[in-house]
């Protein structure tokens, strides 16, 4: 499936739809709390959805590597982790831009912001760890074990801790609701763009990761030729 072309075209069409209809669709007024900036739901929020999916694929390949140590499994794990981290970084930056106009400052120490930053640092350590080991087998094995820990650290930092305290993110009052997005802010029209946007951005991430994997396999072949 990864070599086929249809899902790459699907990704392009979904994002084309997101980037045109996303500007055009009628958004709920919500007593003018967010005005037009609610359209960031189609760009900022899918970064986090995409990051979560890509990092899950990464840990999937890491576990696969531990059961069956092949270079393919290791390349996939590291490529998906890299793309997932890039998505997370873009999520942090776009969030800071949005927060600057919504909450008055780009960084207000919101629990969700802090948690996401910690999660990103944990993933950056994964690449530092991999980069510091020269032996390929050791690098892959230690990397895979670390990746399992890194993935499970996403749950306290992104899903649990922000729910336990007050958050500026919508829906984050005390332990109630989801601290990331408030589903009630979206109406049926917005959902028609939001879910295709999540799928489109995620497929784009998968495409980039697959190119990265194929590149590192080629480099590996050349090194051992």
């Amino acid at each position, binding site marked *: 499936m990864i070599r086929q072309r249809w899902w790459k075209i699907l990704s392009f069409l979904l*994002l084309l739809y997101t*980037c*045109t209809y996303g*500007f*055009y669709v009628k958004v709920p007024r919500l007593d003018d709390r967010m005005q*037009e900036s609610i359209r960031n739901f189609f760009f900022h929020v899918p970064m986090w959805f995409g990051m979560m999916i890509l990092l899950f694929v990464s840990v999937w390949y890491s576990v696969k590597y531990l059961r069956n140590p092949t270079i393919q499994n290791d390349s996939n794990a590291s490529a998906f982790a890299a793309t997932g981290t890039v998505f997370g970084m873009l999520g942090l930056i776009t969030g800071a831009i949005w927060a600057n106009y919504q909450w008055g400052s780009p960084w207000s120490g919101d629990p969700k912001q802090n948690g996401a930053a910690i999660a990103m640092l944990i993933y950056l350590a994964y690449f530092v760890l991999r980069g510091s080991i020269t032996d390929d087998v050791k690098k892959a094995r230690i990397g895979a074990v670390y990746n399992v820990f890194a993935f499970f650290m996403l749950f306290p930092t992104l899903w649990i801790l922000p729910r336990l305290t007050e958050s500026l993110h919508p829906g984050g009052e005390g332990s109630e609701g989801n601290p990331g997005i408030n589903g009630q802010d979206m109406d049926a029209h917005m959902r028609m763009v939001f879910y295709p946007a999540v799928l489109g951005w995620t497929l784009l991430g998968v*495409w980039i990761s697959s*190119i990265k994997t*194929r590149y590192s396999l*080629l480099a590996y072949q050349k090194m051992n030729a």
Partner: protein
Amino acid sequence: MNKLKIIALFFMNCFLCITVKAQETAGEGVMRSNGKIFVVMAVVVTILIGLFLYLASVDRKITRLEKENK
């Protein structure tokens, strides 16, 4: 590969022509309505098309290398 590029450029040109035409003929056409949000849309779509063309060309280069290495 070149054929694809030409087709892509053709479509981009069409898109630009249509938007420019819309501005000229209507004056208050689609690009100037709604606080010029459609100007932003045109910019975002152009970036999107450019990024995908670039990604597709990298993909093709890798495919060629893989075929050579077999």
